[in-house]
């Protein structure tokens, strides 16, 4: 009887890649940084008799809510880009990543405009614990968004050159994970600082 030779099963890749593991370590460290800052904010917020103090301006809630929608919506195109590259459809990847970077830049621009207005109204880093905690906490997040937008721009440039394929797209995946983290972090910070 003739036996067909069955090839052995392919060698399994590790369940969690090294790049993904490195990203988890980075995000865990970043989360602890923000946990410390949130702890600082809680001390100032809960120990204050009046928040915000009577002589200082209130934070612009309407515009920031719209800005929050923009930031959270920016996670959709990057998720689509990741899905497309996993299916091997690399045509729309660069465009989707560029769209995410543009939405992130819009978020930063609106934040910058808000801050300029607040500074003009007298809310500065030296305006007691209210101003200091607001600028440190939200400013730290804005720096992370800036870093992520820069990263997205580089990834979009590389995607335009056709660097990423179905088998090789770890950089795009790591960038997407970092962007999810930045968006998720804002989903915690916005209610804490603007609504509570």
């Amino acid at each position, binding site marked *: 009887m003739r036996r067909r030779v*069955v090839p052995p*099963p392919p060698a399994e890749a590790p369940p969690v890649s090294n790049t993904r593991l490195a990203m988890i370590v980075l995000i*865990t460290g970043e989360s602890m940084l923000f*946990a410390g800052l949130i*702890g600082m904010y809680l001390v*100032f*917020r*809960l120990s204050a008799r009046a928040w915000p103090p009577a002589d200082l301006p209130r934070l612009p809630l309407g515009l920031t809510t719209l800005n929050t929608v923009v930031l959270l919506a920016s996670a959709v195109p990057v998720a689509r880009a990741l899905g497309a590259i996993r299916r091997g459809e690399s045509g729309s990847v660069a465009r989707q990543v560029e769209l995410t970077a543009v939405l992130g830049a819009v978020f930063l621009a609106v934040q910058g405009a808000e801050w300029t207005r607040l500074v003009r109204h007298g809310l500065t880093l030296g305006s007691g614990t209210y101003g200091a905690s607001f600028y440190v906490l939200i400013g730290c997040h804005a720096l992370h968004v800036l870093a992520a937008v820069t990263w997205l721009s580089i990834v979009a440039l590389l995607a335009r050159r056709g660097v990423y394929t179905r088998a090789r797209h770890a950089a795009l995946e790591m960038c997407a994970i970092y962007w999810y983290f930045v968006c998720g972090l804002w989903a915690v910070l916005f209610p804490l600082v603007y609504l509570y």
Partner: protein
Amino acid sequence: MIDPKRTGLVLALVVVWAATRALAQSCAMCGSSFGVDDPVQRAFSWSILFLMAAPYTLFGAVAGWLFYVHRRAGRRASVVELAWRRARVPAAEPGGQPT
């Protein structure tokens, strides 16, 4: 008749209730440095509780996810291995599958 389980639960609840005030202070410093209803004490308590919970929550979430991913990969590998073993055995032999 006294139910020992229910009695134990009630006793545990009484002990926890009696200790809630001490537990809520988070640390001896907060308990002794501020007044009874001082907002600063409350603020420090919540902040300490939050910062105490954060690393455990993060570590637990990451460890749980890694455990889940490894377990799922192990199951998948064993299924592939089993399919390969069966495919190697000719159909005529007992327990064999046609290739």
